[in-house]
């Protein structure tokens, strides 16, 4: 093992998963360093969950290899799984058990030492804000709290790698903020992989991001790269005395103008070297268009997906 490998907590290379002739995931590679948070982003059916199931040993990859802290998941699954905490899409909770009973069961399943079980349960409950729910039946908890039980379950044995499949789905905005800060805290001592289809979520908490589309990685970069990719792509403008679309297009070169509603336009395809914003303001004053609004809009998830996937098509 080389020195570089030691800092890697998880490395998956060339993962491919086929269901019959249908390729769900193809050639996905992941490298995770200690204390790093990676976001897997993608629309529904992009292969996020399948990738996570493979990394956690719930699904065998058709091709490719996975190693956790240098232990091969396929050769030595039991040792490797001990280092992983996994929250699937649907929290795997037993509704007939109380929160305490459930966490005790999970701690035992994950081979937490008997002496440490009490402490581990208290820690996990405190981190996820479940302390007051200890004696409640899981079935009687709201969706948000069940989700927290799911997260508590994934971190109770202090695994090296925490894998969270859409951890904020079904939570209210306050809970989402709490869970996000919890994930950030986790990222300081553990490596975290989380999947989501919410772009701002990835920007808020992840160190790097992989975007999947139809089972393939279409974007793989640090979070800064994603920010740059998203920003400066388009601006939204509105006028009091609106010029026509043709007029705008002819006066501003290299810009695609699309009307949003009356006197409101979206200018896209902007070039960072040749930013037309300044020129637009100048024109508005000269021609008395009466510019009332100018918003630098960041590309939305949909736009990023469209851009990435069309770019991908052009390349291939």
């Amino acid at each position, binding site marked *: 093992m080389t020195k570089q490998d030691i800092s890697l907590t998880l490395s998956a290379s060339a993962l491919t998963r086929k269901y019959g002739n249908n390729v769900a995931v193809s050639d996905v590679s992941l490298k995770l360093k200690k204390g790093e948070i990676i976001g897997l982003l993608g629309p529904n059916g992009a292969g996020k969950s399948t990738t996570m*199931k493979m990394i*956690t*040993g*719930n*699904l*065998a990859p058709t091709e490719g290899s996975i190693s956790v802290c240098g232990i091969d998941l396929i050769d030595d*699954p*039991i*040792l490797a*799984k*001990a280092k*992983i905490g*996994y929250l*699937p*899409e*649907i929290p*795997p*909770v*037993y*509704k*007939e*058990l109380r929160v305490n*009973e459930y966490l005790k*069961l*999970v701690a*035992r*399943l*994950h*081979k937490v030492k008997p002496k440490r079980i009490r402490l581990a349960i208290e820690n996990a409950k405190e981190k996820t804000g479940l302390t007051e729910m200890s004696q409640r039946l899981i079935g009687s908890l709201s969706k948000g709290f069940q989700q927290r039980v799911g997260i508590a*379950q994934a971190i109770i044995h202090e695994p090296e790698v925490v894998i969270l499949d859409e951890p904020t789905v079904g939570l209210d905005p306050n809970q989402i903020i709490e869970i996000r800060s919890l994930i950030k805290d986790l990222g300081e001592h553990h490596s975290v992989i989380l999947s989501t289809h919410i772009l701002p979520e990835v920007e808020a908490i992840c160190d790097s991001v992989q975007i999947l589309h139809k089972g393939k990685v279409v974007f793989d970069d640090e979070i800064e790269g994603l920010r740059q990719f998203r920003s400066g792509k388009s601006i939204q403008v509105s006028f009091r005395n609106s010029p026509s679309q043709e007029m705008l297009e002819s006066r501003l070169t290299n810009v695609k103008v699309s009307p949003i509603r009356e006197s409101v336009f979206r200018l896209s395809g902007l070039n960072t070297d040749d930013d037309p914003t300044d020129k637009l303001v100048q024109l508005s004053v000269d021609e008395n268009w009466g510019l009332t609004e100018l918003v630098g809009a960041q590309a939305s998830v949909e736009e990023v997906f469209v851009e990435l996937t069309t770019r991908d098509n052009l390349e291939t």
Partner: protein
Amino acid sequence: MIIVIALKELKSMFASPLAWVVLAFVQGFLANIFLKQVDTFMIIQAQLARTANAPGLTELTIVPMFGAAQMVLLMSIPLLTMRLISEEKRNQTMALLVSAPISMTQIIMGKFLAMVVFLCLILSLIAGMSLSLLAGGSIDMGLIFANLFGLLLLGMAFSSIGIFISCLTTHPVVAAVMTLAIFMGFWVIGLAASDPNSWLNWVSISKRFEGFMDGYIALPDVTFFVVVITLFIFFSIRKLDSERLSA
């Protein structure tokens, strides 16, 4: 680890009314039959005393109860095994067990152990009823032991088949109906095997159990049950493993 899973399973069983209802049904039904047999014995006791080589108290009261217990297990085990795997799949909790550092073998063995513990509970109720006769007479302990042992093997064989069927579906009720259908099939084979030389005798679970009811613990019969149990536990493990590979 096997014990952790078994304890969890027992907790879930007794957290729902099902386990209690099954226990009450088994006990109520068998107690009825037992009392009826004791009643009959009291009436014909005088006649028996005059007959040479007459069947004893154990043969006339306890053994028929074990015969009925076989039918009771046939009906109640599908209800107990139906949810063992199928419900884990249905509620997506299987991921918890599969992601934990334990093997599929441990998962299945844990579930099977929970069933064995539950069977022992039923058996101890039956044994308690049998031993209550000690208050008024002497009974054949060897015969009771052979019956209990046979019933345990029968219950374990039924449980392993039930667990395997539970691996095949995500609907507990479908699992229960399928398991019951298979047990009924075995029972029909037993009825059809009237000719003692027919091969049907060889595969019939109820015919195998009859030996134990007569007080014989025969090696071929014990082997038969052990093979059935091992085979279906092995099938269950393979089934779960293959789901990871191909599903």
